[in-house]
């Protein structure tokens, strides 16, 4: 089978549409994952057992089950008793929710990594709880969490094509639709290469960040 | 030396020339730098076979570097090292000296054994296998032969009952005695001892030194020893080398160096450590 550049050419407009959707899903999914993960992490530190325990159970469950099935669940099951959402919206929420259980662990490890002495010093200075968090703990935890968070953004990018399975027109969705219409396969190869082209510089960036922050 | 001592060089996998007082180790204009720091500066020195030589001197004077160069854990920047007349890390090809291949290095290196400051026993192997593994895989001894040799050596270092323990279950002193047995099981011509008691709790030092004294007095193995135990050095040494700034400041019998050193620098050093 030969390679036809004309097919690639024809695919290009839809490819860029797909790139836009993928990056959109990645950006909003990342925001959800970062914010919700912090909520999980703080809830897991709660002194209330009835807060801590359900959160641990739910995050463990989400992290140990496939994102693909979770997307199906959100898309086909949730509308039975809840809101009905577009494929893209469902995909973004699914990505954000799934990865929030990973970022929660990153935050947890980052917070646990701050030496106990720092808490004790804050207590000795009678800092309020909020002030201790904002002025002492979080600034120190942040340099431990940035590199692993970055790695999860790259991981999310690589999982993002799953939203094509519920009908979102991201890079893979566009390629699949185009291939089905034209009985060609070039589009799939283009998308495969595109992932490597996007992911490689991203991981180089994270490694550089890691070298700067972790000393 | 009696016929059944576990240290005798005989027909086993490692055939060594007899001890005749000939030159065993020679350093020829060896220079070693770490960055801009010159640790050894065109160092010349030799050790005759069967001798026990102790290297003393302030820390950073390059004593340990000499042992690590001999063990090929470091590479000299300039100069050559010979063991038994063979270049250690070089080969002669068409009249020129070129870096030697792995095979040549291993052939020359098999004459050398080393005991480390931190013991470096293999935590994944029980005590007996720590001692038998290299004789079996490197020298090609049968498992039974290696076992027997290892048990004799364990008896000699007073740990005959620890063959089935893991290294982590032993005290530091016991681990170091196993490490000595492990090095001796390879029947090296020369044993390098790199501050072997420095990492030990004070009460465990004597046991290790007793074992080494025993070996020094009852065998013909050559020893090259870096230590801060001056009494031990006095006991076992034929020759003491005082190092300073990457050079041999002076050398002589222990009586001379410890009793009547030539240099003030030596005197200062000895009064600081004795």
């Amino acid at each position, binding site marked *: *089978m030969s390679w036809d550049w004309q097919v690639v050419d024809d695919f290009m407009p839809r490819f860029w549409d797909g790139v836009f959707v993928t990056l959109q899903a990645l950006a909003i999914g990342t925001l959800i994952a970062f914010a919700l993960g912090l909520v999980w992490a703080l809830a897991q530190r709660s002194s209330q057992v009835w807060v801590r325990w359900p959160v*641990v159970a739910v995050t463990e*469950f989400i992290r*140990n*089950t*496939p994102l*693909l*099935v979770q997307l*199906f*669940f959100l898309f*086909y*099951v949730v509308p*039975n008793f809840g809101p009905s959402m577009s494929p893209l919206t469902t995909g973004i929420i699914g990505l954000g929710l799934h990865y929030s259980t990973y970022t929660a*662990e*990153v935050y947890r*490890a980052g917070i646990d990594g701050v030496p106990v002495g720092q808490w004790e010093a804050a207590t000795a200075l009678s800092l309020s709880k909020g002030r201790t968090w904002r002025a002492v703990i979080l600034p120190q935890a942040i340099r431990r969490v940035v*590199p*692993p968070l970055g*790695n*999860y953004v*790259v*991981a999310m990018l*690589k*999982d993002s094509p*799953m939203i094509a399975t519920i009908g979102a027109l991201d890079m*893979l969705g566009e390629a699949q639709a185009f291939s089905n219409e034209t009985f060609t*396969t070039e589009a*799939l*190869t283009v998308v*495969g290469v595109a992932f*490597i082209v*996007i*992911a*490689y510089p991203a*991981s180089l960036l*994270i490694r550089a960040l*890691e070298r700067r922050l972790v000393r | 030396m009696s016929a059944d001592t576990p240290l005798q060089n005989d027909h086993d996998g490692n055939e060594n020339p007899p001890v005749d007082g000939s030159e065993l180790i020679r350093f020829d204009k060896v220079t070693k730098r770490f960055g801009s720091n010159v640790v050894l500066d065109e160092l010349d020195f030799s050790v005759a076979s069967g001798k026990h030589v102790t290297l003393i001197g302030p820390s950073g004077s390059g004593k340990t570097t000499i042992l690590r160069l001999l*063990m090929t*854990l470091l590479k000299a920047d300039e100069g050559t090292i010979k063991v038994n007349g063979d270049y250690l890390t070089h080969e002669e090809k068409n009249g020129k000296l070129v870096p030697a291949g*792995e095979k040549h290095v*291993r052939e020359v*290196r*098999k004459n050398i*054994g*080393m005991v*480390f400051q*931190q013991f*470096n*026993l*293999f*935590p*994944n192997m029980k005590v007996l296998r720590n001692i038998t*593994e*290299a004789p079996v*895989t*490197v020298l090609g001894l049968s498992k039974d032969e290696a076992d027997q040799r290892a048990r004799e050596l364990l008896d000699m270092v007073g740990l005959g009952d620890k063959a089935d323990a*893991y290294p*982590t279950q032993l005290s530091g002193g016991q681990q170091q005695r196993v490490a000595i047995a492990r*090095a001796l099981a*390879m029947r090296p011509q020369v044993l390098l001892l790199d501050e072997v008691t420095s990492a030990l709790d004070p009460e465990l030092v004597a046991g290790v030194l007793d074992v080494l004294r025993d070996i020094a007095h009852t065998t013909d193995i050559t020893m090259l020893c870096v230590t801060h135990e001056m009494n031990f050095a006095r006991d076992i040494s034929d020759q003491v080398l005082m190092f300073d700034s990457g050079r041999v400041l002076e050398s002589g019998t222990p009586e001379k160096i410890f009793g009547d050193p030539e240099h003030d620098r030596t005197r200062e050093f000895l009064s600081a450590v004795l």
Partner: protein
Amino acid sequence: MMSSEFFTTWFLPGIWVTIQVTVYAAALGAAIAFGIGLARTSQLWIVRFLAGVYFEIFRGMSALVLMFWMFFALPFFGWQLVPMWAGVSALGLTYGAYGSEIVRGSLAAVAPAQKEAGIALNFTRWQRLRLIELPQAWPEMVPPFNNLLIELLKGTALVSVITVADMTFAGNLLRLGTNETTPVFTLLLVLYFVLAFLITRGMRLVERRAKAGVGQRPQKTGGITSRLSSRGESLQAGSQSAGGM
């Protein structure tokens, strides 16, 4: 509710297919992880370079896109794969790349003094690797391998997209046939969770044995919450490899 007939014709075999895909992909992935991981520590720069290229390509690759490509595009290049093997290959190739980072990192973490002791006993490079470095690195590899294995198990759901009849495929069939989506997908999620739990318990046993093999006492393990702690450790230990998970 789900008919028992459907359950026995699709769901039970589906569970079995999921397990098979997991096992085969894990075997392929382990072979690649050790092969590439060792190659990345080679003394020859060309071997290191090629292994590095493999790592960067497959780590940057989306498993789903690779699977699609192997299933739809590869036949056009004259290479037809059975769906099951397209899925297994795509999973093994990508997760093997992450695994190679675990192997490389654990080998690099073996104390340099152990290598020196190996040189002092005149072992060859290969003997040192086999007798000293790998056995000592192994206990350190088990917890991150456990995490990777669970990621792989989750990844197996992707094979349903290329028509392999695993349990996710069975769930989708039932969705198309009936409107009973809620119990089906709930059961599906619970099944994956149970499998992940079993893998974790199994790997805990492996870890205990591995640690005993280097004379270490394993940590005490609790119930399911023990997994949380092992996650945290490996997050810190290998943020690079964690990125792929």
